[in-house]
């Protein structure tokens, strides 16, 4: 067990108040402990934590490009192995870096089976460059490249189901999802992943991006993150060697509660409710609930 009281992500970083990814950076390092090398892609977390010559990281940390963190991590791991060193190698990358531009390098690293842990912090768009949609942006969210308006209800494609469909297909030994709403669970899953041999993947929901999701103040980070889980639009689960081994059960609330609080979905409620679109989003949550068996039955 690592000493979880160690603070390896320092104060003084420039994230927005109540930033989910900033909290996640702290939690990840509590899960890995000191014996780690972090590889980061370009994105909010890299920008707010390392404006030269400042850095909030108290562990070795390397930034390369937007698209190649998994390739850099592969090289770091191969070199450590060659030199009989014991550091864990962890990638921490945004959803744009993971779902879209970095997929080539991720596929290579997982195919070769490097002993790395790849963590995607999922704020559901390219936030650092001004809220463009990514493959992780949910259906109907309004972003600067999927703006809602007279002819559009926002992002026209559903969120890519990346962890089970793509990472498991690569034979990843451990694939998990987590959320900053449950910090202990994040630390536990990170610790498990870095101690599992081979390439592992964790995707962490990091609401809210108060800038990119909008409509609520930064104090609601954990509250909104919990609602995403309670409505079934986000599921916390674990998969080991391709098999689902755990999923967090909930008594589900309607998706409206979660959507209504956020500016990126406001067009679904104002000037009047777009019921057929809300029904489509509810159907996504229902499908998630069925797929992962998360509903707590009445008599349970």
């Amino acid at each position: 067990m690592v000493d979880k009281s160690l603070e390896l992500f320092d104060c003084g970083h420039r994230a927005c108040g109540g930033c989910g990814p900033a909290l996640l950076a702290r939690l990840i390092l509590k899960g890995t402990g000191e014996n780690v090398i972090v590889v980061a892609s370009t994105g909010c977390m890299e920008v707010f934590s390392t404006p030269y010559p400042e850095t909030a990281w108290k562990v070795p940390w390397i930034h390369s490009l937007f698209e190649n963190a998994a390739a850099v991590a592969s090289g770091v791991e191969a070199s450590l192995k060659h030199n009989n060193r014991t550091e864990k190698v962890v990638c921490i990358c945004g959803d744009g870096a993971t779902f879209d531009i970095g997929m080539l390098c991720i596929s290579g690293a997982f195919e070769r089976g490097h002993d790395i842990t790849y963590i995607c912090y999922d704020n559901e768009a390219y936030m650092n460059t001004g809220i463009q949609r990514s493959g992780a942006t949910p259906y109907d969210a309004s972003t600067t490249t999927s703006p809602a308006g007279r002819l559009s209800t926002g992002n026209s494609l559903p969120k890519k189901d990346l962890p089970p469909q793509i990472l498991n297909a690569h034979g990843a030994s451990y694939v998990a999802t987590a959320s900053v709403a449950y910090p202990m669970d994040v630390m536990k899953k990170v610790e498990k992943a870095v101690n599992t041999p081979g390439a592992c993947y964790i995707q962490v929901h990091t609401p809210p991006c108060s800038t990119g999701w909008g409509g609520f103040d930064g104090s609601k980070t954990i509250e909104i993150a919990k609602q995403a889980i309670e409505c079934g639009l986000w599921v916390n689960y674990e998969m080991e060697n391709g098999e689902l081994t755990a999923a967090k059960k909930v008594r589900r609330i309607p998706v409206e509660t979660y959507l209504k609080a956020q500016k990126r979905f406001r067009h679904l409620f104002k000037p009047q409710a777009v019921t057929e679109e809300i029904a489509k989003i509810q159907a996504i949550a229902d499908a998630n609930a069925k797929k992962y068996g998360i509903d707590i039955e009445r008599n349970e």
Partner: protein
Amino acid sequence: MALRIGCAAAPGRAQDNKTGSWRVFMPVVDMEKCILCGTCVLICPETAVSDKDGQILFDLDFCKGCGVCARECRAEAITMIQEEK
């Protein structure tokens, strides 16, 4: 010829940047209500809360006043108050 690429920064240099100056509201804890559960210590995105000798302490050099600690405290022991500057 040595060809240098990249640059390095000393660990923890971010502490040069006193983000406490961003704050509008300041957290204040009522230790009569606090049950010392440690939630606020764990969830502060700024690493600005600590508990020492049964006291909850806020590092006002870095606390941005986001209010996450106050909202998540199940004992409702933390209030955000407007700060006189």
